[in-house]
Each structure stands twice: as C-alpha cells, then as structure tokens.
C-alpha cells in the first residue's frame, strides 16, 4: 500500500536527491516532506514552488490545447483531471536541479511532487523519469 511517505522515500533514492515534498499548489500546503529543503524552510519552499507550478498550469502558452480558441476549451468537472495540461516544471540552478511533477488523480486535486537534486551528483533526465513513475504509483494500486 504505497502512501505519501513511501513515495517520498522512493524519491530520496533517486541519485543526487537532497529533498522531496508533495505540495498542493492551490493552497500552497506541503502534504509531506523528506530530507533537506532549500533555505531550510519547508513551508516557504512549498508556497514558492506552488506558485511556480500554478503559473505553469495556467498560462495558455503551456497548454496542449493552445491552438483551440479560448472559449472552446472544455470545462472538466466530475470526470477527474485526465490529461493534465503540464507534466512537469524543471528549474536548473548553478548548484542544483528542481523537478516538479504533477500528480494526476481521479478526484479534483492540485498536487505535485517536488524533488530537489544536487547538481553534481544528480542526473536530470533520470530524475525526471523516476519522478514520473513515483507520481503515478502514488495514486495507482
């Protein structure tokens, strides 16, 4: 029975992992956290990454249906959030990588996994694939 803690532990096994959190990007709440946090403040990091993630999901430029006229985009309700507009947000800095992977749930939610990696020991491509897998297993049986 994988839960929040098991998924966070799996994220910490990714090479170069320094810290991982599960964040609700509407409220900015950290639902779970493990390891280090940039700046040492889990809640502040959660609020900032939530803002970043939210903007990525809202900007029309990043929407897969960007070609559609704005009025025709279907308002999804009650059918789950199949097909999230954005898969992940990646930020690279001189000392690390940040991968934010959106979690697709059958109920209405706004959750993503944030993995912070060391620049020297982390592998961005590998981390992205592993995090995608972990995000999927968080909600699948």
């Amino acid at each position, binding site marked *: *029975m*994988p*839960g*929040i803690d*098991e*998924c966070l532990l799996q994220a910490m096994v990714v090479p170069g992992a320094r810290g991982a959190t*599960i964040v*609700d990007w*509407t*409220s*900015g*709440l950290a*639902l779970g956290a493990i390891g280090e946090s940039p700046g040492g403040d889990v*809640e*502040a990091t959660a609020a900032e990454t939530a803002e970043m993630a939210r903007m990525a*999901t*809202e900007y029309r430029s990043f*929407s897969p249906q960007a070609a559609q006229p*704005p*009025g025709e*985009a279907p*308002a*999804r*309700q*009650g*059918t*789950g959030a199949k097909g999230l*507009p954005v898969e992940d947000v990646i930020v690279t800095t001189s000392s690390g990588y940040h991968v934010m992977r959106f*979690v697709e*749930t*059958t*109920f*209405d*939610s*706004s*959750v993503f996994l944030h993995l912070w990696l060391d620049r020297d020991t982390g592998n961005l491509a590998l981390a992205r694939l592993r995090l995608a897998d972990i995000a999927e*297993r*968080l*909600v*699948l*049986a």
Partner: protein
Amino acid sequence: MSTPTAAVSPTLTRLAEERATGVLVRDHGALYLSDGQVVHAESPAAPGLDVLLIAGGRLGRTGWDDAVARAGARREVGRFLVDSGQVTGGELELCHLAALHDAAFFTLGPAGGPTRFRYGVAHWMGSIRPVPAADVAREASRRRGLLEALWPYPGVDTAPLRPAPASPGASRRQRALLALADGVRTPPAIARVIGRPAFNTLVEVRRMAAAGLVETPPDPACTPRARLPDWVPDFSDDPDIALLRRLRDALEASL
C-alpha cells in the same frame, strides 16, 4: 512561517501538550484528536472526504456507505476503503489531508465561538495520517493570511458567485467553477458540487475577484452605512392594511 503557533487556539496547544484524545468542537466545525495529534476534522463549510472522492467518480456512494456500515463500528473506515481496493493508500492520504486542513481552517476561524472538548471520542474514519496540532493551527492561520493577501474582501467567500460580464482570462480550474455559477450557488456550494476543498475554491474565487473575473459584493462591514434622512423614520410603521386584507381574502378564497 513566523506566525506564533499558539495564536489560533490556546486550547488546542494545551490539548496537544497533554496528548489528549477526543473531539474539539467550535461553532463552525470539529477537530478529532488522538494522542494530541489531529486525525480528522469536519466542518459544514467544507466538503467531506466522501464528497471529494465521490464527486470525482473515484468511489460510488454505495461503496462509501458499505465501508461506513462494515468498518464504522470498529473505526477503521479509511483502512477498509484501502483494503477492499476502492481507493489506494496514496489517494486516501492526499484526499484526507486536503479535507482535514480544509475543515480545520473553518473550525479554527477567528469568530468560531467558544471551544469545547470532549475527552475519549474517536471518529469512525480511523487514523489515516495524523497531523501535529501545531501544524494544523499554523496552516489555518497561514491560509487566512493567503486569502487576505490575494483579495482582502471576505464578502466574495459567501455571496453567490457572479461572473463579471466578460471573463476571458479564467484558467482551466477557474472555468470549472464559473461553469457552475448560476447566481444562486455560493463558493462553498460550488466546492461541494465539483468535489474540491472549499478553501481551494475560495483561493480561486479571491484570485478571480482580484482579476475582475467575478463580482465583489459590497462588504457591509467596510462600507460606512449611509444615514437615513430624518424624514424616513417619521413614516408610520403600520403594516399595509389593504395588502393584508387582499392576502387574507385570497387565502380564504383558496380554501
């Protein structure tokens, strides 16, 4: 966050320190504690875990009712839902945490009335992922600050949601809310229909109000009440006798 944790409810802090088990009840909701940690929360303003799971189609109403009937007495409904394969452990934790903080936000509100605590009470949901009481209190106060920072007009939280005449810039998740705005439904009512935590709905509503996508009702507390001209109170406050007569006649005629 630098907010002092004790600010929201000193009672909650004391209960956490004495590792109390029971239910804390205020005007707008209840927090269930086990060993000083919050294991469940309920508020009429926040959709419950059942609403969140069922509205999205993850779970059927019969599946939920069955779980409550079969595992409610031994207070293991959460575990039963997972063990019977109706939801996964991750889904249950995510959804339950969302519901817990949502209900706690309304329960711990500033005008929440007196705080009562009954020792020994446990919720039938069972323990899913306990949260330290201090974390719950701190999160509730952070949420209040967030709403205030987004758009400091609490009137939009409880008034029927009214889209502004032209609202083209709404996001995908905001459009889902606007689609349910029928001039009657308030944000908490829409949250219930769509199966989204009420606080998350309020965040979107305040953002939309700040962006001019929905109307902000005039706040009675903020607008100074205009004084009536002196001649108004001079009017006789007798009821309209003629109207009452007509009503009586109509009622008698319909009997």
